[in-house]
């Protein structure tokens, strides 16, 4: 893995930027003096432009929002939510997809048919529509968003892993392992799965960006993370009617979001080039881009 990252300068830069951003998301709200949720003296503090100092002498790097809350601290707190939801949503979805794909390929028969029918059914509805239906009907929260991202995101990886596993299972080294008396599960775990994982890792990395975008979209529509708890999507929604008078309120979280998805995408690109990810999965992720 280390050699891989060093080989691609852009991906290395992406990893560094993401690491710095994640660190800032953890540290900034923890050590900042400004409370990102509390609403203070709204009249004197609201909508201060970036790089301004308020009457009390507090410096606001990115200015303040309509309630006078420091935008930078809020944005970093939102980053915790957005990054966690995005990463958890795509990684758990990929893990579930890997499990389902492996189970389907290894058991065959009616289990395989039932699982693939379920995957095809879910794939036959645009992901955004599925997401909206699920997100709108249950009480909106970070947990709901993660669950919904998992429920609508595992099918691609499951199909991928199943196809890879069926290919791998026919390979001589797996067959000889079985012939030498390896149990079926051990053959699956030790031989087949590691060889089918490459495309899944690529799909997961590229999926992080998609998941973060989808979370922000749901939050923008009011179906995701609920204020006062901030996410990049609901912060952009909060700046929607201020886009002319105080554009920084929407620009700041949007920039953080683009930077994150950008880095996740170039890391995914680099992994794909070296792990020989699949093109069908890439096509699907492009076609699903909302």
């Amino acid at each position, binding site marked *: 893995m280390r050699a891989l990252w060093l080989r691609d300068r852009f991906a290395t830069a992406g990893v560094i930027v993401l690491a710095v951003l994640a660190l800032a998301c953890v540290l900034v709200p923890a050590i900042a003096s400004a409370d990102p949720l509390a609403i203070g003296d709204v009249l004197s503090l609201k909508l201060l432009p970036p790089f301004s100092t308020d009457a009390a002498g507090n410096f606001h790097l990115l200015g303040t929002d309509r309630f006078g809350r420091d935008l930078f601290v809020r944005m970093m707190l939102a980053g915790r939510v957005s990054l966690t939801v995005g990463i958890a949503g795509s990684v758990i979805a990929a893990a579930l997809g890997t499990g389902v794909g492996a189970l389907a390929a290894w058991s065959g028969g009616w289990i395989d048919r039932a699982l693939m029918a379920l995957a095809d059914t879910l794939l036959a509805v645009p992901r955004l529509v599925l997401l909206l239906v699920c997100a*709108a009907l249950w009480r909106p929260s970070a947990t709901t968003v993660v669950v919904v991202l998992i429920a609508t995101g595992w099918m691609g990886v499951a199909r991928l892993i199943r196809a890879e596993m069926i290919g791998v299972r026919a390979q001589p080294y797996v067959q000889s392992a079985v012939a030498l008396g390896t149990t079926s599960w051990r053959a699956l775990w030790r031989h087949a799965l590691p060889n089918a994982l490459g495309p899944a890792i690529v799909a997961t990395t590229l999926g992080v960006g998609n998941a973060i975008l989808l979370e922000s979209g749901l939050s923008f529509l009011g179906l995701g993370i609920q204020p006062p708890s901030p996410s990049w999507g609901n912060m952009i929604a909060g700046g929607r009617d201020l886009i002319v008078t105080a554009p920084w309120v929407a620009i700041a979280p949007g920039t953080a979001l683009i930077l994150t*998805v950008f880095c996740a995408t170039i890391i995914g690109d680099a992994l794909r080039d070296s792990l020989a990810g699949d093109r069908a999965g890439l096509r699907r992720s492009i076609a699903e881009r909302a």
Partner: protein
Amino acid sequence: MIAAGLMWLVVTLTFVLLRLAPGDAAVLLVPPGASVDDATRIRAELGLDRSMTVQYARWLKGAVSGDLGTSFSSGRRVSAVLAEAAPVSVTLGALSLALTFLIGVPIGMWQAARHRTPIDHVLTAVTTAAYAAPTFWIALGLVAVFTYGAAVLGLPPWLRLPSFGLRTPGLTLSGWPGLMDLARHAVLPVSILAGVGAAGIARYARTSVLDIVRMDFVKTARGKGATSASVFGRHVLANALPSLVVLFALSLPGLVAGSVFVESVFAWPGLGRTTLTAILSRDYPVIMGATLWYSGAVILANLAAELALPLIDPRREAA
């Protein structure tokens, strides 16, 4: 046959999802201050007081005979609601999808031809950033510049673009002026969808062309002295085309699903916005009808891809 089975699975799953969710559609429909009796009466009128099985059977029976029921909130036929919204989304989608491929594919191929040059890196950065940007965020930015900021920034009148709805309210234009009015309203939504879409397609086209250029048969063709135009047309393009056609087919359902975000920001009464409104107000019949329509589109698109592939890729004989 498989397609019909799949569509049945989709609507059944949607039905189960909708009814599993906590909450009550009737509560959202009663006016403020209504009594419990009112809610009960509405529930009975909509048939929501019957058992799940009865409701499901009723809906399925209607759907099979082409009756998708009536909308809870507007009382209009679901098919009429969808038929009214579809042209808006399809126009928006068709224009932007055509532009997406017309712009994206050449950019990606050009990048591949200039692989690892500064211009390739710049274009990669630009397309990746556009691909990474949420459409609603770009939409807000463009609205700020071209609608609200146009006068302040001193933009020429033709660059001062409307950003709400399909036509200028209060004006009844027909013929050419009406079309021009519609076109002006379409500039921002179409550019956003086409821009973000083209970025994705350019990224894909670049990757797939680069995959092919590394193949042995391209080296052989170069080695035997084929001109670069013939290598590109005969070998590279011919091999890149099938996967682009599949991508095009996979993008088609997005066209009928409409863009929820762009339609929301620009208040276009298309399918995306109709679906979102229906979901928010628990208008079950409209949600079910829309889902049926989407899954039909997805299945048709996949079928179209499978049928088109043997035509452009001789290696794939129609099985």
